């Protein structure tokens, strides 16, 4: 076991009534890796990410973050310094100004009084502004977040992650509701910033094309199992075909 393993997943399983969401998954992610989770809908990508984020507890198996059992990191604030999450929009408070949504990444370090004062007089303003500059939104600091477009909102979410500075970023379909140009832009920014900060990224994606372009390693899930786990250059079209093949089509092919 090398020192560089930031995530170790050992045989985790998760069942929902009758349905197997994850069946005995194991893999290891090294620090700084860019991993894309791909696979058909319902394959268990979101469940896996939520398990890694400790939002869902697995039925069996264990997850080690930096060698520590995830279940033992019960303090939400400690966990927030290890793991940050970005989802397909809806993760910002629309009524707040952009700067407060960015500074929400600081809440794990701030006490109650400081967070209260910050709503009136933004604290650590410089951190927030430079984060917004790095994601390319320098002029929207005080705008109401709900007035921003979908792509801009995802940038704000990225700025929040910059302020939160977790070691691992879990991205659940971060570009699912964006048009192709915006989607590429967000993925490019996400992976570039993570590289600059030396963070590890695990992102679930619908598009294999994006996964291949912006990530270095693909983990393919199908029916709760890992179908393949390969560096991008070793993923072949046959493997992808198998991954996305529908059962019905299999039978038709036989007839």
């Amino acid at each position, binding site marked *: 076991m090398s020192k560089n393993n930031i995530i170790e997943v050992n045989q985790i399983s998760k069942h929902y009534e009758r349905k197997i969401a994850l069946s005995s998954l194991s893999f290891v992610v090294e620090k700084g890796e860019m991993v894309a989770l791909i696979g058909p809908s319902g394959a268990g990508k979101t469940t896996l990410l939520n398990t890694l984020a400790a939002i869902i507890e697995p039925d069996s198996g264990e997850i080690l973050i930096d060698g520590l059992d995830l279940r033992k990191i019960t303090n939400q604030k400690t*966990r927030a310094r290890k793991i940050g*999450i970005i989802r397909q929009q809806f993760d910002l*408070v629309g*009524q*707040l100004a952009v700067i407060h949504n960015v500074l929400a990444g600081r809440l*794990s370090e701030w006490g*109650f009084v400081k967070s209260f004062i910050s709503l009136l007089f933004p604290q650590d303003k410089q951190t927030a502004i430079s984060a917004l500059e790095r994601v390319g939104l320098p002029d929207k600091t005080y705008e109401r977040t709900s007035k921003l477009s979908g792509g801009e909102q995802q940038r704000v979410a990225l700025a929040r992650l910059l302020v939160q500075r977790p070691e691992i970023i879990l991205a659940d379909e971060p570009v699912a509701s964006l048009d192709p140009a915006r989607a590429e832009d967000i993925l490019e920014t996400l992976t570039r910033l993570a590289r600059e900060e030396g963070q590890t990224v695990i992102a679930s994606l619908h598009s294999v094309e994006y996964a291949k372009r912006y990530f270095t390693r693909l983990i393919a899930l199908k029916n709760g199992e890992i179908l393949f786990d390969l560096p991008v250059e070793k993923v072949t079209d046959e493997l992808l075909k198998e991954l996305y093949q529908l059962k019905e089509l299999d039978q038709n092919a036989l007839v």
Partner: protein
Amino acid sequence: MRKPKFTFLTFSVYVFLFLIAASWYFVVGVEKASLIELFSRENLQYAGKFFKGLVGVGEEKIAFLSKDSWSEAIKLTVETLQMSIMAIGFSTVVMFLTVLPAARNVADGTLTLSKKWYSFLLFGLIRISYIFSRAIPELVWAMIVIFIFKPGILPGAIALALHNFGILGKLCAEVIEDTDSRPIRNLASAGAGRMQILLYGVLPSVLPQFLTYILYRWEVIMRTTIVVGFVGAGGLGQQFKLSMSFFHYTEITLLLVCYIVLVLIADFLSERSRYFVK
């Protein structure tokens, strides 16, 4: 051919038709009511006298032309405004103190991601107090409060607040129950504590809606002051009842004018502030 199915819908249509027929039978056949009786010579005479009185025909003292009456009426208008502001103020304060534990998603911990053993006890107690407060009409609250204290605008305001805090509490608790929990859960995963979630997640998303409800209830309270005034809570309502009893018709006109002005002011203010919030 398929036999038409006897559903609840067809059943309710038959019941509806039957009820219409039966009601008409009762009105015409049993009660022997007639529309023409309403317009009898006597009633016409009374109505004529009343409306002529309102505009001041044949009255000795015409209130809306006298300076003293106007200053008296304006004083009462200000009192009524005070009563309504006090009432909405009291009920808003009490609502804010109780509304959080009264929301189901706060009680079961799904919104703030933390749950205490007493959450549901508190939830039940507050919800019951809301129902109790709403169930008793303002008029009854006013009679009780004025029976205990002496008549005046403060007891009137307390009575109105007692009825309205239950309404506001229920409405606002439902607003909290309807908030989108996704941004709030994300705050939790960014490491925000319970109070921080409240500040950054819950309050910003519910406050505009709260304000709308508070202003709406304020408008309603303004109108209801006349009702509690009848039982001695002061303000325009009380004077209205007195003028009515003494047959001072022109005073009634004056008071009604003041009333309409008040409601117009409330309407304007709530419209403006709602616009401002958006």
